[in-house]
């Protein structure tokens, strides 16, 4: 296999690994842009994954699985919303609680139902998302360079992946070109001003939290119905936190979020690819170094050494109406 083919394989794998990150990152973006900090992405992703596996296993239907995953993730989001918006809780504490409950509950219930240590049964092929072939794949595949890129990199992914990529411009448009988006961003910067204009801070923040639930639930659905075809405990394996890192790295903006998530997904694919490979001078590749790179890059960015990541001004601060 030539270097070009390897390149395509690693990139295609990077897209697959980056998809849940994109969805999780957009979810966090909606929530945090409205002023609700969400470190519970990991937990919601896990709940979404579990519910979609359970739904698809019981009904054999991929759409029921999809809906179950999203619904469960919204429910968890609403708990976080209730704590953050109505109870004016510390949002970090609430997110931490959600991560713990999600990790424990999905494993517990999965084990209680299927008695396989928390793993759910393997889903049949018709209860998963299949890959979609874009038009003219076979005729264009013969074209040099562009052909293989089209055939293996752009075509052949599943519905959720294309949806994730589509949701980036949708998010961009909704946040920057609609009235709702303007208000939502305002509520994350200066909720008092929004309140003064006679718009409900609470309603805006709740809608952001629900949108966040839908998106991160989709990320969980993707892990099960597009990738693994079963649920197993802690299968999100830190993807919610990488998405959070990507959000910081992208400075809370949609297009950079896409780029960052693809970069982090690509690094992940590279780490898997280079496992056990001996390089000429370096020797065996320290795979852990590549795996840790997203976290290190985020810390370096946060420390202000490459640009400055400034979160929305009112994020994490409960809004208290003055009396």
């Amino acid at each position, binding site marked *: 296999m030539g270097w070009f083919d390897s390149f395509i394989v690693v990139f295609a794998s990077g897209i697959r690994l980056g998809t849940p990150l994109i969805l999780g990152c957009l979810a966090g973006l909606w929530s945090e842009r409205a002023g609700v900090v969400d*470190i519970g992405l990991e937990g919601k992703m896990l709940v979404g994954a579990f519910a979609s596996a359970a739904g698809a296993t019981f009904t054999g239907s991929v759409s029921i699985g999809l809906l179950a995953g999203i619904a469960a993730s919204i429910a968890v989001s609403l*708990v976080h919303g209730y*704590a953050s918006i*109505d*109870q*004016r*809780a*510390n949002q*970090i*504490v*609430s997110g*931490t*609680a*959600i*991560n*713990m*409950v*999600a*990790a*424990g*509950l999905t*494993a*517990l*219930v999965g*084990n*209680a139902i299927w*008695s396989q*240590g*928390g793993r759910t049964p393997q889903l049949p092929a018709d209860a998963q998302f299949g890959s979609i072939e874009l038009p003219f794949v076979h005729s264009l595949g013969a074209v040099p360079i562009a052909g293989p890129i089209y055939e293996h990199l752009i075509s052949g992914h599943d519905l959720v992946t294309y949806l994730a990529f589509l949701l980036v411009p949708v998010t961009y448009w909704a946040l920057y070109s609609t009235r709702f988006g303007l208000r939502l961003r305002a509520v994350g910067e200066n909720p008092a001003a929004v309140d003064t204009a006679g718009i409900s801070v609470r309603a805006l923040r709740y809608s952001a939290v629900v949108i966040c639930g839908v998106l991160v639930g989709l990320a969980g659905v993707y892990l099960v119905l597009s990738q693994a075809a079963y649920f197993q*405990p802690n299968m999100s394996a*830190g993807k919610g*936190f990488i998405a*959070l*890192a990507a959000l*910081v790295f992208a400075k809370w903006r949609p297009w950079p979020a896409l780029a960052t998530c693809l970069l982090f997904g690509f690094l992940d694919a590279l780490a898997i690819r280079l496992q056990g490979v001996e390089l000429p001078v370096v020797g*065996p590749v*320290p795979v*852990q*170094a590549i*795996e*840790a790179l997203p*976290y*290190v890059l*985020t*810390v370096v960015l*946060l*420390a*202000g050494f490459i640009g400055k*990541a400034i*979160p929305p001004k009112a994020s994490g601060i409960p809004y208290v109406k003055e009396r």
Partner: protein
Amino acid sequence: MSSPLKPLPAWADVALIPLINVTAAFIISGFVVLAIGENPLEAVQILITGALGDLDGIGFTLYYATSFIFTGLAVAICFHAGLFNIGVEGQAYIAGLGATLAALNLGFLPGYSLAFAAILAAALFGAAFAAIPGYLQAYRDSHIVITTIMFNYIASAIMGYLLVDVLRVPGQMNAETAPFRDSGRVPQVHEIMSALGFHWPVTPFNLSFLLALAAALVVWLLIWRTRLGYEIRTVGANSTAAIYGGISPARITVVTTLLSGALAGGMAVNVILGEEHRLILEYTAGFGFVGIAVALMGRAHPVGIILAAILFGVLYQGGAELAFEKPKISRDMIVVIQGLVVLFAGALEHMFRRPVATLLARRTAQPPI
């Protein structure tokens, strides 16, 4: 959410509200057990018997509690400075590296001074690893919550690399170091008891427990009886006011994270020097996160933390017994309880305040004449 909250009497604030919050967490946990088709009361009985029914159970319970006292104190001391340290897990992991390097390489030290050196190294490594996010928060304005989360993963990557590729004994399958010599270990209670001629079952319960109690006392003295503690609390309450009072919040942030990391190192003393006697992969097993639940439940007070740590020790030891007898109630149940405690004692801590305030006000109100 209309009228402002009336102040509650002190006893209600210190004891009643926390008790209601924790009870709510346990009631919901009971419903979870019910939902998976088991009897919660029977589960509680098995859990308590397993944790406190005999010396064996008590030994394990106190062994777990020792780790939780350390991680709880580490989280709590940061709470006092208004900082949320989610990185205790990673700090304890790196502290294990410090303890191991000292115990394996300082063998020339006479007698038990090797163990003391290893304890010191654990504290130093933990403190150094915590101080980086602390420094970045204090002087580079990067949020400590995000950086400590990142540092947990960085710790995991560093340790994974070191254990698999560097520290592993050649030819050994498991990613673990060579065992420590006896003088680099913290003595276990059953060893001391049998030396004194008493019978005590073999459990990992070791003298680190005394160190944990001492640490709790020191933290109490530090926070409420020293100038530094006053400064920490002032920065936590209002860092702008602290500046007017001549206190540097940046300096306090770094000092507090140093102390927090050193306390996290206590977990390495208990588990690595007290029980495993070698460094193993992912030895922290989520206990750093339990510290968050313990600190919130104990309301960041050392006495509360010791009680909460023992409760979680009961849950972890009893939970293991419970999972053995009732396979449906796996050890994940304990993680659920832990999360619910964080939710109710932390995030929703004021949820029951208003009803309780209304109830108390109604009871104490004078009837109209």
